[in-house]
């Protein structure tokens, strides 16, 4: 009975090894995730600073919670003003005081 004991039965079971650690189902993904996080910039994101008149306009009316329909109104007013002044220049000023052509 004793003679039958092999050497292998004396070696304790392998609880963990490098291969054993890597054989978990999501281990490969986790290592990729670690790589990904390493490549990310650390710390808080730098606050966006609007620059220039367009940037300030954008920050005021377009970005995040500031988004509003006011730019459409501004566009309408701009087109209206431009259209009217062209109309006035080409057409209406010649008819002041109800004058004919």
């Amino acid at each position, binding site marked *: 009975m*004793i003679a039958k*004991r092999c050497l292998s039965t*004396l*070696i*304790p*079971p392998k*609880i*963990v090894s490098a291969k054993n*650690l890597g054989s*978990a189902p*999501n*281990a490969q993904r*986790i290592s990729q*995730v670690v790589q990904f996080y390493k490549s990310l910039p650390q710390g808080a994101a730098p606050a966006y600073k609007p620059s220039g008149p367009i940037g300030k306009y954008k920050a005021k009316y377009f970005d995040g919670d500031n*988004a509003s*329909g006011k730019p459409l*109104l501004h566009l*309408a007013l701009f087109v*209206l003003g431009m259209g*009217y002044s062209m*109309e*006035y220049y080409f057409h*209406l*000023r010649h*008819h*002041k*005081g*109800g004058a004919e052509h």
Partner: protein
Amino acid sequence: MSLRALTMKASTRPLVMLGMRQAPIGARYMSTPAPQDPKEKASSILSALPGNSALSKTGILATSAAAAVYAISNELYVINDETILLATFSGFVAIAVKFLAPAYKDYADARVKQVSDVLNASRTKHVDAVKQRIDSVSELQSVSDTTKVLFDVSKETVELEAKAFELKQKVDLASEAKSVLDSWVRYEASVRQLQQQQLAETVIKKVTSELSNSKFQDKVLQQSVADVEKLFASLK
């Protein structure tokens, strides 16, 4: 026609007309469900304007009204067909601001919230997955100690087994020696028994052969007589 003509026209217009003007306005007021407080109305108009103080807001209102009056009177702004369209367009803009814009805002906010919810949910899921992985790995952090203990246990096992084997061999040897000695004892005993048997047999055989000898018979007889005499002598 210029404003001068118009003012002339207005001055020549009978006052009855001005009195009659009140009627439709009154009717319009009645049509509104709850007539607003004029002050409230004014403040709501003011609050819709840009600027901070009530003064600047009223200033803007007054300035724009004055500018409009100036533009119209100087014919900088010429009223024509498009003016009506300008009015209706302003009405459309008002409708859009009042009804369309809040509806769109709700829709857009819901959409933004939906997207951020999806992203946040996936982030928490991801964090959970990483944490789970960290936990599963950290369970294995005492693995080298455990392995060492396991090796000690198997070393002990081997030692104990060796000792047991040694003892068992000793026991085996003793029992074998005992059995050898026992067999020796048995053999000696049987040999002695055999010798005694043979001795007894030879003695008996000799005696029986002696008994058949007449000389011996005589000798025995004489001996016996002598013994009997001696007995009687002693009895006396």
